[in-house]
């Protein structure tokens, strides 16, 4: 009987999901979804709620029918199920309801406040998810039925990172890799030495400066956890350091994207800055997604920096161990520091990268799942109204300022109602494709010229040409779906990690670590901001 009681929350969530899915299936939610601008996701909503709901119910029934066992199925599926369903429900509620609601509310509050709240605080689903996790832990605490499932967060986040590997090209990885090694290397070592030097000035014990320097230098709490036993930190030192780093990191998560947007950083610059300046690696991912949650460019850059930092961590541990070891005479083997700490999932990241480089997800002619298709297709045609507009403009000689090639492209667009090669050449694919692409380039030139006010075109004509160009830009469904999976993984992982942040660990901040931490953290963030703006200007991702 008590087992059924334990499973009650899961049963309720499962039933709720199925009811929601069925209601959505009848089409009753279309009006609501349209108002929230989520109607495009309705199909996904139905599938996800029904599938997750069914699994939740099934699992809850099995769990309440049988004694909890020790088998693999028990530890990996049945016990974590409740927590997994809880996080999924939170993720779905946030993505489909809370985020749109926050947007609508902050839009209506705009006249009152003078700015859009969600834009300033970057309240997209990732940030909202982490906040929801933090709020849940610190108010009700993680419910008992969910505790084993919440532990899956790290696992799912790793899956997200592995999947992200599929989105890089060789050139990108090489270029970003070089940047990240230089920037991370410089700032990690710089901060470590800065903190050690500060510790020397303020005459603080070595164990404390050791812990703090690693935490401020590499990856926040993770580094603190790795270094504390090595430098034999005292408990108060650890508490202060972790508290300082956690609170600094959470502030960074909100402040960085806003500053980045104000400074007009591009995605690459912001990713590089977040990857260097923000301490905790989960918060780096969160800030990158907060800066831009739709396009994953920023996340891609930030994650490379993150991985570089992870690879730097053992080096720092080794350096600090030698620095500290002189006194204690304690020796640490290369194996215990580098091999034991090597994160195997990075190999998975590389495997997916290799698979993607071999063209498994999209042929090499496609650029990361985006490609241009100029073949004949009804769907790539402009609408008849647009055709009318273009035809009228042509007859009124509105295209007078265009070059001969541009004029030819426009004429052909009107003739064929879409961007394509010559009809007679359709057997010769190469020639056909070449002509079609060059016409597209010419039309893009027309749009650019109109934007620069070199020629005058009416808004309707411009939008018609824009539509025609857009129609031949296709996205590979495979890559789009893979990216969506990855974003869900990240959202799940970050919500779960948010649940690990307790109020107590944050409010522990204090003592000398907070002084030294704030000095070094702000120095690092400011310096890296300027260095990134100065250096990373020219990396273009496509």
């Amino acid at each position, binding site marked *: 009987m008590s087992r059924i009681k334990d499973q009650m929350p899961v049963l309720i969530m499962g039933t709720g999901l199925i009811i929601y899915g069925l209601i959505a299936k009848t089409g009753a939610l279309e009006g609501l979804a349209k108002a929230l601008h989520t109607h495009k996701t309705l199909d996904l909503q139905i599938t996800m709620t029904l599938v997750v709901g069914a699994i939740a119910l099934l699992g809850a029934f099995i769990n309440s029918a049988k004694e909890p066992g020790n088998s693999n199925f028990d530890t990996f599926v049945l016990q974590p199920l409740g927590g997994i369903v809880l996080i999924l429900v939170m993720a779905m509620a946030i993505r489909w309801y809370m985020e749109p609601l926050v947007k609508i509310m902050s839009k209506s509050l705009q006249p009152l406040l003078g700015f859009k709240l969600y834009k300033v605080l970057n309240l997209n689903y990732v940030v909202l998810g982490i906040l929801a996790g933090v709020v849940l832990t610190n108010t009700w605490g993680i419910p008992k039925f969910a505790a084993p499932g919440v532990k899956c967060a790290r696992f799912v986040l790793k899956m997200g990172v*592995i*999947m992200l590997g599929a989105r890089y090209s060789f050139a990108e990885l090489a270029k970003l890799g070089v940047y990240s090694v230089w920037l991370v290397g410089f700032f990690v070592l710089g901060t470590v030495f800065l903190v050690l030097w500060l510790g020397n000035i303020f005459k603080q014990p070595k164990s404390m400066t050791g812990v703090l320097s690693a935490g401020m230098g590499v990856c926040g709490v993770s580094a603190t956890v790795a270094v504390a036993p090595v430098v034999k930190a005292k408990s108060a030192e650890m508490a202060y350091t972790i508290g300082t780093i956690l609170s600094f990191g959470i502030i960074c998560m909100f402040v960085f994207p806003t500053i980045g947007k104000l400074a007009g950083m591009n995605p690459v610059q912001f990713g590089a800055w977040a990857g260097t300046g923000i301490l905790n690696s989960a918060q780096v991912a969160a800030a990158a997604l907060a800066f831009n949650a739709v396009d994953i460019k920023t996340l891609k850059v930030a994650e490379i920096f993150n991985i570089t930092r992870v690879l730097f961590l053992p080096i720092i541990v080794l350096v600090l161990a030698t620095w500290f070891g002189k006194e204690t005479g304690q020796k640490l083997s290369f194996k215990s520091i580098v091999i034991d700490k090597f994160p*195997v999932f990075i190999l998975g990241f590389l495997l997916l990268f290799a698979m993607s480089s071999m063209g498994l997800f999209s042929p090499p002619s496609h650029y990361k799942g985006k490609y241009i298709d100029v073949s004949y297709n009804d769907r790539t045609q402009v609408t008849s109204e647009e055709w009318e507009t273009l035809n009228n403009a042509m007859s009124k000689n509105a295209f007078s300022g265009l070059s001969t090639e541009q004029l030819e492209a426009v004429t052909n667009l009107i003739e064929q109602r879409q961007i394509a090669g010559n009809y007679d050449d359709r057997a010769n694919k190469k020639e056909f494709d070449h002509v079609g692409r060059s016409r597209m380039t010419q039309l893009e030139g027309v749009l650019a010229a109109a934007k620069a006010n070199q020629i005058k075109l009416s808004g309707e004509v411009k939008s018609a040409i824009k539509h025609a160009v857009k129609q031949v830009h296709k996205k590979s469904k495979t890559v789009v779906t893979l990216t969506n999976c990855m974003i869900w993984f990240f959202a799940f992982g970050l919500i779960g990690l948010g649940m690990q942040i307790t109020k107590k660990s944050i409010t522990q901040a204090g003592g000398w670590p907070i002084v030294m931490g704030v000095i070094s953290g702000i120095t690092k963030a400011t310096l890296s901001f300027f260095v990134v703006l100065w250096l990373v200007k020219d990396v273009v991702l496509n």
Partner: protein
Amino acid sequence: MSDEEKKVTIETGDAGKGSTEIAEGANTEELEERALSVFSSDRNEDITALIFCLITTFLVLLFTKWMV
């Protein structure tokens, strides 16, 4: 600390370095597991994550590329 307190050894899996000794009178309910994850070791976790990713990738490829 009273050293004469009885200790018991419990199995904690790989992550807990095999086994650990706790005081017999320890409040096990409050002690709870310390592990971060449901897996017994990191290698298992990473490899499972990779396998899951490959399965996801395969399914996505199957439904968006090979079957259409």
